[in-house]
Each structure stands twice: as structure tokens, then as C-alpha cells.
């Protein structure tokens, strides 16, 4: 008696969970889906009410060298074929031009009869042949839409004039596509910051976790003290320093200052402390130098922590907005986030291009996340436990 009812209860609960999870999941995905949907629309149909999820636009045919919209003629305008009970199939027509009486249309597929022949045309009740022209009141016309995907929006955003870099860029021709420049800069800057952070902070973390030297704890306290300091407090003087040295608008300004936050050293030091010392004691007795211990014992054992730090630093510097915004205003040095912001300034109302550009910026980081997500999620848990 209790067995089946409990199973049913369990199933119902699971179902409710799935419904809730899916509802939230859909909400999460809506902006992304809308971004992609808009990025594939034709400029004239990017804004519509009601909005359409599948990019579509009025179908057209070319008649005498002119693009004419395709429409169907509503049933009220058409009579029933004699002897048939079903309403007529809609009549497909091409709209040639509009006049006060309605629209002059040309029949594309002869399928129906005209119930009330408009005065302007001489068409009598009867079958309409393909190619016949007649005037139909606008109210009786429905534009035919067809799904049409504009992949070329991506190429257009990539090559947009408004973000084209008109100066020498790594020896390339004097005009370089904006997003090529932003991508190159982002990749360069992110890789340098990530490698630099992981390398220097793992060395320092090793010193703090494994070496004894006078002043060690005091120095580490200095690192700790800056963890709570808002980033802007640190950025202002560094910005002033770089401005006065005329070092803004350089790669050094983008790369060096973000490389030395206390966070990386702190995270790795905490992890190194959890590694038992027995292994390295043996190595030290065998005459291993501190560097050998660091290189051959500590680093290999710290792969999860290193991977975590790498993912964190990579994502953070790839998406960083404020610091590049402060130190760079030359287009040739912009990274993707500030490049995209610049793009937005130039193409405020070209929604399909804006969305295509956003997708262009978002894709690589999503790929990295999907690959590194295990480390990332574990890393958050790791950093949270310490708190």
C-alpha cells in the first residue's frame, strides 16, 4: 500500500522539479536565444511587434526586374468554386503597386475565383489564370513570410567600417577589420596575464607556504590586507602613474597591472599548505634544491588548484571591462569588451549587427567554460570553503 503511493509521490516530486528547473533554465536562455535570433534577421525586420523568434521576412518575387512582395488574397474576396463546400485555397499573388482602390496584384498561382470583381479591373467571375492582374483591397491581402537567415550579418559586423582600424597593426595592411584587432588583443592580453599570474604567484605562494625567511608572515599579511580593497582604489593611482609616464595606450598598461593581485598568491598558498611535507622532506634529504621541489613535487601535485586559478584569471581578464576602458582609447589596442562597447557606440540602432557582434565576442569564452567547467565549479567551491 505505502510502496506504490510513495513511488508515485517521488515521481510527482521529480516531475515538479523538472518543471521548475526547466522554467528557470528557459529564462536563463531567453536573452541568449534572442541575441542569436536577432543577429540573423534582416535590418528592416530586426524590430517587429509582435517579436518573431525565427528570422523571417516577406517573401518576394522578381517581376520585370522589380522585387515584388508576395501575398495571399483572403477568403472573403474569393468565391467558393462551384459545387465545392470547402472554402477556396488562398490565391497567391505578387503586389505590383498600391493605388487608392487597393493593390494591383498579379496572380502567381491560379487556384480560386473572384467573388466580387473590383470595378477597376475587367476580370469577370470565373477562374483566374496565372499572370492575370487585378486590384484587390488592401484589407484582403496578407503578406507571405518566409524564413530567411542572414548569416552575412556576422561578416558585416566583423568588417564594420565603424570599428575598422586604420593604422599599422602587427605589420598588417593599413586597414584591419575591427574584430580581428580586438580578438588579437584579447588573446594576447589574456594569455600574458594568465601565464604571468599563474607563474609568478605560484612561485611566491611556494615561498610563503614552504620556505622560512624573516618577515615572511608580515609580507603575507600585506598580501592579505589588500584582498578586501575595492579594485578601484588600486586602479586610480596606477592609472595616474601610467598617465604621467605616458604609458597608457600600451600593451604593458593592459597586461602588467592586473597580473599581480594578491588573489592568485593567496589561493595557491592555501592549496600548497594542504600538501603533506613528507614527499619533499625525502627529496630535500636527497639534496633537491627548493626550485626542484617546487618544479617536481609541488606543481605536479597542485594541478587542480593551478587549473582553477588559470580558468578564473582567464575568464576574468577576457571579460574585464573597467581597466582596459581606463587605460586604452586607441582603437588598435582595444580588447573585445571595450571594442564591443565602441561598436555599440557606432551602431546603436543596427540591432542585428549589435547582436551578431555580441555573439562573436561571447563564443570563445563559452567554449572555454564548457571545456573547463569542471575545474571552475570545483574552484569556486574550494575558494568558498576557505571563507
Amino acid at each position, binding site marked *: 500500500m505505502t510502496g506504490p503511493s510513495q513511488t508515485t509521490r517521488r515521481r510527482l516530486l*521529480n516531475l515538479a522539479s523538472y518543471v521548475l*528547473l*526547466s522554467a*528557470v533554465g528557459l*529564462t*536563463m*536562455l531567453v*536573452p*541568449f536565444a*534572442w*541575441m542569436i535570433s536577432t543577429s540573423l534577421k534582416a535590418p528592416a525586420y530586426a*524590430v517587429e*511587434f509582435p517579436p518573431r523568434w525565427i528570422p523571417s521576412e516577406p517573401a518576394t518575387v522578381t517581376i520585370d526586374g522589380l522585387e515584388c512582395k508576395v501575398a495571399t488574397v483572403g477568403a472573403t474576396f474569393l468565391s467558393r468554386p462551384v459545387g465545392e463546400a470547402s472554402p477556396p485555397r488562398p490565391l497567391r499573388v505578387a503586389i505590383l503597386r498600391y493605388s487608392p482602390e487597393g493593390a494591383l496584384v498579379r496572380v502567381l498561382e491560379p487556384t480560386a475565383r473572384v467573388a466580387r470583381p473590383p470595378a477597376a479591373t475587367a476580370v469577370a467571375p470565373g477562374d483566374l489564370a496565372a499572370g492575370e492582374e487585378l486590384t484587390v483591397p488592401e484589407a484582403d491581402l496578407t503578406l507571405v513570410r518566409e524564413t530567411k537567415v542572414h548569416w552575412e550579418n556576422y561578416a558585416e559586423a566583423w568588417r564594420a567600417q565603424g570599428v575598422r582600424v586604420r593604422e599599422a597593426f602587427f605589420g598588417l595592411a593599413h586597414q584591419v577589420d575591427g574584430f580581428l584587432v580586438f580578438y588579437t588583443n584579447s588573446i594576447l592580453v589574456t594569455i600574458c596575464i594568465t601565464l604571468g599570474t599563474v*607563474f609568478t*604567484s605560484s*612561485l*611566491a605562494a*611556494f*615561498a610563503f607556504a614552504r*620556505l622560512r*625567511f*624573516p618577515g615572511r608572515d608580515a609580507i603575507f599579511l600585506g598580501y592579505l590586507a*589588500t584582498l*578586501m580593497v*575595492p*579594485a*578601484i*582604489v588600486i586602479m*586610480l*593611482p596606477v*592609472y*595616474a602613474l601610467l598617465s*604621467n609616464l605616458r604609458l597608457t595606450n600600451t600593451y604593458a598598461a593592459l597586461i602588467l597591472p592586473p*597580473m*599581480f593581485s594578491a588573489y592568485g*598568491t593567496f589561493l595557491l598558498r592555501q592549496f600548497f599548505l594542504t600538501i603533506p611535507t613528507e614527499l619533499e622532506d625525502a627529496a630535500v634529504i636527497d639534496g633537491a634544491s627548493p*626550485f626542484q621541489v617546487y618544479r617536481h613535487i609541488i606543481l605536479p601535485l597542485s594541478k587542480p588548484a593551478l587549473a582553477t586559478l588559470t580558468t578564473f584569471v582567464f575568464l576574468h581578464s*577576457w*571579460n574585464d*571591462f*573597467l581597466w582596459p576602458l*581606463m587605460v586604452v582609447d586607441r582603437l588598435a589596442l582595444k580588447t*573585445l*569588451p571595450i571594442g*564591443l*562597447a565602441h561598436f*555599440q557606440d557606432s551602431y546603436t540602432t543596427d540591432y542585428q549587427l*549589435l*547582436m551578431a557582434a*555580441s*555573439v562573436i*565576442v*561571447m563564443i570563445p*569564452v*563559452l567554449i572555454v567554460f*564548457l571545456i573547463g*567547467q569542471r575545474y571552475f565549479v570545483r574552484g569556486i*567551491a574550494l575558494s*568558498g570553503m576557505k*571563507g
Partner: protein
Amino acid sequence: MSNPTIPDRTHAAFDAAAHAASRARRRAAILRALPFLLPNLLGFLLFTFIPVLACFGLSLTDYRLAPIASLADLRQQITFVGLNNFVRLLGFTREAGGLSANDPEFWRYLGNTLFLMLGIPLSIAGSLLLALLLNQRLRGITIFRTIYFLPTVSSAVAVCIVWKWIFHQQPNEIGLLNSALMTLGLAHPPDWLGTMQWAKPAFIIMVLWLGIGGYNCVLYLAGLQGIPQELYEAADLDGAGSWTRLRHITWPLLSPTTFFVTTMSIIAGLQGSFLFTAAFLMTAGGPAGSTTTLMLYIYNYAIAWHQLGYASAVAAVLFLLVFTFTLINWKYGQRLVHYT
């Protein structure tokens, strides 16, 4: 005097030798540590530690950033003004009508910053709920986890651009959100980003979307997975219902996570780096300053108006806010935490 069996001189020499030996040992220890420490320490001092001190120093000056030809120029640009910036920033002046703030904008933007933090409790509650759902053994649960985390890893600039498009409201151009609201029967949906009363709620909606499945949710999930299963089994034997288990096992055992998550969210909220991006790209801090946060205020003073002295003072106040909050939190907040 001292030890009678050993002559004074010998004792001193012994001391000196021991001292020299320890000095040599210390020097050796430092020399051994330096190659490890130096690359990071130098950068840390130059780009993190000294700047913190420099920011407080600058906050006591009226430094205006301008091109310089020599150090002498710089010395001329910087005048020590004591606490003047702070008086202007935090002070009030008695006027005919009563007290009026010397810098009303600061108080307004501080208010904006705090108002925008109202989303935090909602966001945390949502994260907890999601974590509870995600903690079940259901098939395909990892897909949901990935989806919920997507907004967190996405480029903030791209996120802001698409949300601006979703909130869009112009004559003849109705954004996705308002189209949905109109379909649901709301004849006149709000102009989200264009009106003072709706811009902040719009930002809070965006922050909720961004944060609910993000870091906080992952932390809660880790916390949930750390709760020993036996506790629930024992509760089952006692006939506890699911609400009782949630109230008396899950919630108290998650309190360290809740404490950490709340602390970090409030610190992040005060700094509001995402909201800075949002205000910068979506509203330019408007309409009429209603989405300007302290971060944007600092940015405007420093970068747009080159007044680094005053900007540093605002930044210092922001730091003091974060610091005071953290201190109070550690002193009193810990009491709410249940440790096993």
C-alpha cells in the same frame, strides 16, 4: 657580574659569533626565498600595495591629472588639502532651510548603490532554492547547472547589450520584454531604461538573472553536498517531514555558506563592477543620474573630469564602507552561524 666561570670577553665573543651566524643564516634564508618571491612581490608592491597607500595619499590632495613635462609640473599639480575632500564629500552645511549636503550627488549615488543591492537577498534566496533543486539525483541535472552558470561566464558587455535590447522601448519599437507584457494584457508597459522609477528595477531584474545560478548557487550546492546524509536518515526515523528537515538540518548546516555568500555579495554589491558596466553601456548613469553608482561616480571624476584627488577620496570612502561592513560582519555576523 655575569657567569663567573667564563670571562666576560669570551662570552661577548661567543654572543657575537652566534649573532653573526644567525645573521648569515637569515641572509641565506632571504637569498633562497628571493628568487621565488621577487617577481610577484615587486609587481604586487608596484601595482597593488603601494597604490592602495597612494590612493589614500591622493585623497588628501586636490590632484588634477594633466599632461606634465617634468616632475616639477607634477609637484605643482598636487597640493595637500588635508581633509577638505572628505568635508566636501561627507559634510553638511547649515543653510536657511536647514542642513544641506556639500555634495548631494554623492549621497544620491550612495543611495542608488544601496538601492540596487536590494536584489541581493532575492538573489541569494533564489540561489538556495536552485541549489536545493539541483542537489537531487535526477537525470540530466548537469545540463541545468551549466545553463544556470552561463550568464556568469558571459561577457558583461555582451550581456548588457542584449538586455538593453530586451528592455528597449521606443515609439514603434517595442523590446522583447514589453512585447511579452503587452501580450499578457498590460496595455502600457514601463519604459524600463528611460524613466527614473523603472531603471533601477530593470537593473535588479538583470542582476537577478545574472546571479541566481552563478557563484552563490555553486557555493550552496557545495555546502549541501557537505551535509552528512545520516542526519537526514535519522530525521526520517523520527518522522520529520521535508519542511522540518529543511528548517532544522539543511538551513542551520548551510549557515556558514549563507554567511560567506552574503558577505561576498554585499562587498561585491558595494563595488558593483557589473552595474558599472551596465550603467556605462545601457543608461550612461541616467535617466537623471538614477542608475549612477559610486563606481561610476568615481570613474567620472577620475577619467572624464581628471579630478583624481576627489575621485580618490570617494574611492577611500567606498573602501571604508567595505571595511566597516566586513568588520561588523565578522564581529556580529558570526553569531548567526551554526558550526558543527
